[in-house]
Structure formats: structure tokens, C-alpha cells
């Protein structure tokens, strides 16, 4: 199972309401994923030359101020930290690779769960309602947010195994489904220098995208390659600095629905997660097609194929691998 949800606000006036609007979306997906929950919220962009790091620790009592002081001294950099339960948001002008190295060396019990200019990632085990409350998300404002409720099938129920998984600066992934070639792919990615925190199959999908993006591929191109190289069932929602993208596997095994009004764009595993948004009944609602990359944001992808989503601001691109086309309808 698992439930995934995303909300992008087109109307800037709604931004202070983001956390309040998103709460019923995430909570409605509790029955699909009561084990753990997580969100990536995009808010409060940092200044030029600064990076925002989302950090997590097993203990809510962890001394984050001490960590910030150490970063400031060791890296001769700015470091302001805000603790929220088991997580902390650290803003620093330190170089990201030096930050990673310092955290690994001096703070090995701290997990770096995401980084960028605006993204903040919070995830924990427990019911979505409890997780949402722990991280004070109801009062949170922002431009967009994606979330995940987890019913684990492939690996342990742990904070590190919860979604979202970071895939690069301001990029992260939530996944509904299961991948069947993740062990082989993980070995390959390790050879390419990627590190893993869990045995989770979704973390492999995130690492795969990270690897592609590091090589300079666009997110669209990385997702198109993922269609060829990830074997299994998936609906992905990928949070970006500008909005979010949605991709379903070539046979659309896992559910997904998209809805759009003048004020917002929402995606969810099921419509009931969208039903309580203002104007949902009158929204344009459609099901994303398989093997098609959808994205929203002011700097969305270039789309090369029109979709059922004609009146939408979405950019949609359907990918048709030649080998798959030939096989379709062939083998009984």
C-alpha cells in the first residue's frame, strides 16, 4: 500500500495556509500507510550562498546548538539551527560537501535527510496525525508540499526508511509501489559512489535519480531513464524547488489522481485525499497516464505531447520505449 500526496499552491495568498490545507490530505491516507509518515515542505528560502540542511537524530533531546557551534568553528561558516522534535533545520554558508564530511566525521549519529534552498524534510514512524503534530506542520506556510504515509512491504519500519528521500538540492521523492530490481541497482549505484542509509527499495529509486542528476541530466531526462531501468510498480511524486512532478510505471499499476483549480494543483493516491481542499468538487480531475512525466511549477518541463490535461498548466511528456511498444500485446 502506501499513500502519496502533493499540493502546489498557484494562489500566493494561500501560502500561509499550506500546512492547514495539506493536513487532511495526509491524514486521509492513514488507512493506506499507518506505519510512518513524512513530508517535504518548501518554505522560507535561504539567502544567497546559504544552504538549508534537514537533519535528524534518534533522540528528540539531541543538542543541536552544540552541533551548530561545532559547524561554525570547524568549517568557519555561519550556522543557525532550529530544532523541531527529532529533526533540525540548519542554515549555513558552508560548502555542502564540507558539511557532509564534517557531519560524517564529528556527528555520525546525525542523519542528513535533505538539503537545498527551501526544502525541509520531516519524517518519523507512527501515525500520520502524530507525525504531523510533532513537526508543527499544521501552522506551517509555504509554496508546496509533498507527503507520504507508509505501509512497509520491502524493508523495516524505521525513521530512515520513511519517505521522502532526498535526491539532490531541493529534490526529493515519495513512492507508492515496490521495485523488484533494487538490490542489483543498489550494488551498481554503490559502485558509482552513492551511499545508502537503509535497505529500502524507494531509497534506491531516489539514489538512481540523484546519480542521473549529478551527471547533469534534467529531471525529465532522469525520469525517462528511470522508466527503462527501474523494474517494478511505482507512482512517484518528486518535489522540486519550483513544484512537483508525477510519474507512473508503464502499466500504471499503482493508483494516482490529479486535480487542479485556479488556486492549487494536487496529486494523491486516491481522490478522497483531495476532497477536502477548497473547490475540490469543481476541480478539473483526471488520472495521470502511465509512462508520462507530469510537472508543475513556474519553470516546469517542456512538454512535447498534449494530454487529456489540455486545459491544465501541467506539462506532460509520454515516453514510449521502442522495445516496449514492440512487445505490447505480443506475448500471452
Amino acid at each position, binding site marked *: 500500500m502506501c499513500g502519496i500526496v502533493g499540493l502546489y499552491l498557484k494562489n500566493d495568498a494561500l501560502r500561509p495556509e499550506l500546512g492547514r490545507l495539506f493536513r487532511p490530505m495526509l491524514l486521509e491516507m492513514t488507512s493506506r500507510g499507518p506505519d510512518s509518515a513524512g513530508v517535504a515542505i518548501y518554505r522560507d528560502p535561504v539567502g544567497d550562498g546559504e544552504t538549508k540542511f534537514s537533519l535528524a537524530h534518534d533522540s528528540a533531546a539531541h543538542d543541536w546548538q552544540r552541533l551548530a557551534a561545532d559547524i561554525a568553528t570547524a568549517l568557519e561558516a555561519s550556522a543557525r539551527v532550529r530544532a523541531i522534535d527529532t529533526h533540525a533545520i540548519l542554515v549555513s554558508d558552508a560548502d555542502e560537501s564540507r558539511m557532509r564530511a564534517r557531519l560524517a566525521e564529528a556527528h555520525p549519529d546525525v542523519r542528513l535527510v535533505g538539503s537545498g534552498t527551501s526544502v525541509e524534510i520531516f519524517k518519523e514512524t507512527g501515525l500520520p496525525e502524530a507525525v504531523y503534530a510533532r513537526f508543527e506542520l499544521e501552522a506551517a506556510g509555504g509554496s508546496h508540499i509533498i507527503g507520504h504515509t507508509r505501509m512497509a512491504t520491502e524493508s523495516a519500519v524505521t525513521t530512515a526508511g520513511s519517505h521522502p528521500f532526498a535526491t539532490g538540492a531541493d529534490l526529493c521523492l515519495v513512492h507508492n509501489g515496490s521495485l523488484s530490481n533494487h538490490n542489483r541497482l543498489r550494488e551498481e549505484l554503490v559502485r558509482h559512489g552513492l551511499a545508502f542509509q537503509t535497505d529500502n527499495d524507494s531509497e534506491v529509486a531516489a539514489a538512481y535519480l540523484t546519480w542521473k542528476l549529478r551527471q547533469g541530466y534534467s529531471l525529465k531526462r532522469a525520469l525517462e531513464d528511470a522508466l527503462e531501468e527501474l523494474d517494478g510498480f511505482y507512482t512517484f511524486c518528486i518535489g522540486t524547488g519550483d513544484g512537483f512532478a508525477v510519474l507512473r510505471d508503464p502499466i500504471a499499476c499503482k*493508483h494516482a489522481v490529479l486535480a487542479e483549480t485556479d488556486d492549487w494543483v494536487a496529486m494523491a493516491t486516491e481522490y478522497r485525499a*483531495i476532497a477536502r481542499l477548497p473547490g475540490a468538487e469543481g476541480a478539473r480531475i483526471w488520472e495521470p497516464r502511465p509512462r508520462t512525466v507530469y510537472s508543475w511549477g513556474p519553470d516546469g518541463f517542456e512538454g512535447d505531447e498534449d494530454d487529456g490535461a489540455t486545459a491544465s498548466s501541467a506539462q506532460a511528456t509520454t515516453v514510449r520505449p521502442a522495445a516496449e511498444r514492440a512487445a505490447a*500485446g505480443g506475448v500471452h
Partner: protein
Amino acid sequence: MNTLDLEALGLRAVNGRLHALRPETNERRWRIENPRGAHAIACGLSSPLDVEIAGHVGFYCAGMNQRAEVTVHGHAGVGVAENMMSGVVRVKGNASQSAGATAHGGLLVIEGDASSRCGISMKGIDIVVGGSVGHMSAFMAQSGSLVVCGDAGEALGDSIYEARLYVRGEVESLGADCVEKEMRAEHREALEALLERAGIDADAGDFRRYGSARTLYHFDSDQAAAY
């Protein structure tokens, strides 16, 4: 008309109220308000009721329906009218995957588009889709009719046994053992009757017919090496 507020009463109470009605009841007309995408609304009805649902519904709406006429004034989630036995289910908007799955009888009308696997394993239901259907529609269809006024996605009618498929627009590809067949007068008459019952204005002469080549009914020793 009796009105049931699903938000106030909860799903079990709403469905329980409808299930408690005897076939000879005079309380035939019902309206369900605030469906908000809930699953299994108006599921398992067995009396000849007229049920209007005011909004979008979740999965399995009107599943296992017998005799009732259920109208969804919105979109429907996965498996609308799955395993329907008789009666009519009408979706004014679009339907998600597996609409009319395994259904034995009755009429399912989807005025908008249906997603993938529409009519999967259909066993006697008639389905009329005003728009297009997604990939793998009528997969393993065994009996009944699927009418598509728009286009059909990849692998239409894959592994079809029987069942008649009528498509007005483009078929992206046919599935294994599904072939185009001649549209004879009897098929045209049947299609006209279906469109009439569905209340969809379309010319039966614009449709093409597809069905089973029946080559998968028996094991073919020429293909033994494939197993």
C-alpha cells in the same frame, strides 16, 4: 426523495439503510450527499432503487449491484460497478481503472473517459463509454459488450474469450488474440440498442467491431517450446 448525508451518517449507516429496503419498498428514490471520494458507496444493493450520488466517489462504488439504478454525479474511482449482476450504473464524469471488472450483467455507462483495464474479465455486463478507454481494456473478457465512443489504448481485448468490442475512434493496438471483425446487421442493431439504452448520441455506422480470434482456447503444440 430521501436524502442521506454520508458525512454525517458514515458509510456503513448509509449502505445499511439501503440494504434494509425490501425489493417491494415504496421508498425507491435516494440521494447520497457529501460522498467525498469514500469507498464502496452504494455497494451490494439488491432492490430496484434509484440512487443519486451527489459528487465524486472512491473505489468500488455500486459494486455487486443487483436491480438498482445508481448515478454518480461526478467521477468514480477504481472498480466502479465491479461484479455488477444487473441494474444500471451511470457515471456522469470519468472512471478510474477496472471499471465494470468481472461484472456478470447490467449496464454501466461512463459518460466521460475510463482509465485502463475497463471491463477486465467482464462476464456479461454491457459497458458504454462516452469517451476513451485506457490500456488493457476488456482484458480476458468473457461475455458482454464494451462500446467505446472515443479511442482505445494499448492491447485492447488481450486474451479475450468472447464479448463484443465496438470502438468508434482509434485503437492504439490490439492485444493477443483480439482481431477486428466484420460489422454485420445484427451487430449494428445490438450496438444501436446499447447506445439508445445508454442515452448516448452516436451513429452505430461509425464504429468498428473487435473480438476473439479464438486461437487461445486450445493449446497449440507448435508453441510447446514457449512453455
